[in-house]
């Protein structure tokens, strides 16, 4: 009897021993890091100057063709809004196909074609690639510009403007642009009913004739296609595209404000304030500091462990999320940090934003934060490679933004070489807690008295004008 029970005890023991082998007190050791391979884009250039990149990927039987036109920003003035109508009007019929016929032909193969003033894309299953290219080139090179269709588009745009009047996110975006760049800058101009009504077909045609040129174009073909096949298709459909001289435009970068300005936009129905801290930043795409800046930005407001998120959400519970970013641009980049916070804590949230920004400049970035930010950016770089379009966009960016040829190949190496001292040194150059705009869209009567402590208070209307 005893023996038997002993066996049972042993059996039980052995079971628990198996479980006890799982050491839950610490994280498992990772396996050796896998190699991150960046595939190559094949490339060739047509006689008309169109640069073509091909990324072959056979995982899914589909292809995507994307065109980018690299032009300078254009000031639209009294006709603001016409450039955004170029794409919709090109999609509204060609010289040989009405809008109905075109829409029908695209849907018949289950394809997607989108066109904007400086880009276009088309995608479909592999087996429809010939029809896709035919339709895409018809839209790009044979637009009909039917006047009746422009009238429809204008009506749609005016309806869209109406919906924006009550949309706090749209208001915040519009006012931010107006405040940062001013309304005489291509980045700050505002579309309204009056400017839309002033637009006619000739404006769109003239834009098309000036800027739709292959010599400022980059075409990426991604998917279930090899270089030879892609080359044959591109030659067939894009060779007759005529090159031409495209005008260039120079624009002044935006200026930082003297001191802090608090911009208030009243939306009495709001239960949350959208708080946006913004200021211009001089950061070109090929700036040697770009990687450092992306690390700074990641530490301040890049993810679910950033300083802003941990403070405003996880510690204070003011918001569902707080984030920041620094956008590079060849004319004028900008810094933006934002959160939607409940009305009652608006001034407290504003205080925390300034506090976090100030803190970034005070030599506070730690080794641990830097390592976390590096891991974050390394991880998102690695994950982005799952999408074959990423490799095409790398190739395009190198060309368009004059990046070093090995920018992406060396990206992880350069990222990992950044030191804490580098970041603490450049932080004051990019973090401007004393020269910024704090734009707040909300029920301002609930908190306006408590905001002049942060800077000069200026009232704006929801459509981006200073309130008189």
């Amino acid at each position, binding site marked *: 009897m005893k023996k038997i029970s002993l066996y049972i005890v042993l059996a039980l023991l052995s079971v628990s021993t198996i*479980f006890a*082998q*799982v050491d*839950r007190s*610490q*994280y*498992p050791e*990772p*396996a050796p*890091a*896998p190699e*991150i391979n960046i595939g190559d884009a094949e490339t060739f250039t047509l006689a008309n100057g169109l640069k073509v990149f091909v990324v072959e990927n056979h*995982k*899914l039987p589909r292809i995507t063709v994307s065109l980018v036109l690299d032009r300078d920003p254009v000031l639209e003035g009294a006709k603001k809004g016409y450039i955004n109508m170029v794409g919709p009007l090109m*999609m509204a019929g060609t010289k040989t196909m009405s*809008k*109905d016929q075109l829409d*029908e032909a*695209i*849907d*018949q*193969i*289950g*394809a997607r074609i989108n066109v904007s003033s400086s880009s276009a894309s088309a995608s479909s*299953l592999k087996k429809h690639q010939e029809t896709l290219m035919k339709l895409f080139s018809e839209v790009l090179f044979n637009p009909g510009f039917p006047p009746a269709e422009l009238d*429809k588009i204008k009506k*749609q745009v005016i*309806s*869209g403007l*109406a*919906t924006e009047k*009550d949309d*706090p996110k749209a208001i915040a975006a519009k006012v931010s642009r107006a405040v940062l760049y001013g309304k005489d800058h291509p980045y700050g101009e505002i579309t309204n009913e009056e400017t839309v009504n002033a637009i006619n077909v000739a404006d769109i045609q003239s834009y098309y004739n000036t800027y739709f040129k292959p010599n400022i174009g980059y075409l990426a073909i991604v998917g279930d296609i090899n270089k030879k096949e892609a080359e044959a298709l591109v030659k067939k459909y894009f060779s007759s595209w005529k090159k031409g001289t495209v005008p260039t435009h120079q624009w002044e970068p935006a200026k930082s404000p003297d001191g802090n300005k608090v911009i208030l936009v009243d939306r009495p*129905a709001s*239960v*949350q304030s959208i708080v946006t801290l913004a200021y211009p930043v001089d950061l070109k795409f090929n700036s040697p500091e770009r990687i450092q800046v992306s690390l700074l930005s990641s530490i301040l407001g890049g*993810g*679910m*462990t950033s300083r802003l998120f*941990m403070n405003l*959400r*996880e*510690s204070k*519970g003011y*918001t*569902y999320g707080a984030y920041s970013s620094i956008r590079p641009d060849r004319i004028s980049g900008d810094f933006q940090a934002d959160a*939607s*916070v*409940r009305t009652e804590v608006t001034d407290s949230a504003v205080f925390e934003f300034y506090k976090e920004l100030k803190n970034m400049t005070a030599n506070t970035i730690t080794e641990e934060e830097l390592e*976390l930010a590096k*891991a*974050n950016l*390394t*991880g*998102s770089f*690695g*994950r982005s*490679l*799952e*999408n074959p379009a990423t490799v095409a966009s790398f190739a395009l960016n190198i060309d368009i933004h004059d990046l070093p040829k090995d920018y992406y190949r060396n990206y992880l190496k350069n990222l990992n070489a950044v030191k804490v001292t580098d970041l603490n040194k450049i932080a004051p150059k990019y973090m401007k807690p004393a020269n910024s705009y704090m734009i707040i869209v909300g029920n301002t009567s609930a908190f306006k008295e408590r905001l002049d402590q942060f800077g000069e208070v200026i009232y704006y209307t929801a459509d981006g004008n200073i309130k008189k």
Partner: protein
Amino acid sequence: MKQFFVILFLGISFNSLAQNQIKFKEFQLDNGLNVIMHQDNTTPITAVSLLYHVGSKNENPERTGFAHFFEHLLFEGSENIGRGEYMKKIESIGGTLNAFTSNDQTYYYEVVPSNYLETALYMESERMLHAKIDTVGVNTQREVVKEERRQRYENQPYGTIAPEILKRSFQVHPYQWAPIGSMDHLNAATLEEFMDFYRTFYVPNNAVLTIAGDLDYDQTEKWVRKYFSEIPKGTKPIPRPNVTEPKRNQEIRDIIYDNIQLPAVIQAYNLPALNHPDIYALGMLSTYLTGGKSSLLTKELVDRQQKALAISAIPLELEDGGVVLLYGIANIGVVADSLESSIDTQIERVKAEGVSEKDFQKLMAQVENSVVSKNASVAGIAQNLAESKVYLGNANEINKEMEKYNKVKREDIQRVAKQYFDKNGRVVLHYLPKASQPVKAETK
């Protein structure tokens, strides 16, 4: 050692409208946890996900919003992972994570560099074995969820459409409340109630673990067994609604005054259960109505008549039968009634005439494109495998989607339009600008 159950599906299909086959292996632990693995070594990343079969429909009507709130709490930590450490650890290994809660499920996922697969498995097992929830976490996340509600619903024009539709479309079924739930209920909830919810629903026999990406099948299975085998099977009965939403014979119609400029018309028609074969014909009907610029309602209302700024059919397919929303925003100067009567005219046309052979072929091409494009990422594949397993009873249903669409006949589109898009059984809401609200009217 018990023999486990392994199935390997090989991709063979002879149909002309075929989808790429997703190969996978699956097994079940003794505690009831279903595990699905899909290997794709092209990028050195791996997605790990846990689908807990608990959503807002499993909630006590006095404690709505519990499932979603619990999703927030599960990021708080475990016996071995301190508060706030969960997100930090995943980010520090170069991973990303998130979760969402629907009416039917709570879904958690991480995508990590593949050498950290074991870490991700360990972390998910920690949450299932012994999540740690304290009052500090509960109080903070309660505020965060309130802000989520304000941001998504109250501060967003047309933001309340989903909850307003659900509460009218479901008179009996717990789909009548949205996953965000009631803030009063969350205020009243105690820590003990949360722990009870955890012990009831967050058990291996109510979950599917899916791992997709750069992995080794044998090694992955060993790790899964190592970390998940010791988690005890749930002992409590898992509450699932067993009510059927009765068919209604009278239209429900209301006006909601919102902070908007342009009126919107929303019609909602109840759908059959997610695993009902008509779901595919209904999906095609939605595409016929608003998928692509040549679709019936887009062409007629946005393009020809210019009555709508935009219109879309949004199917909310749910386990016990969801709803499909037809959601149109009026163009400037167009009143809701006028937009609605034009929508109705077109729907009646489908019921009376059905779809042409040419339009049917177009629909098949659109469906094929969307089915083929669906499984483009390992995270997406993981989710589709898990949902196929839970709602369709077999992970391999992921590979049969096109086959099911191929079974839909042209006449079925007309039939389901007649059968499900019934004027008398629908809910219609007009969203109107607050400025147009009669002074004495009560606000909803």
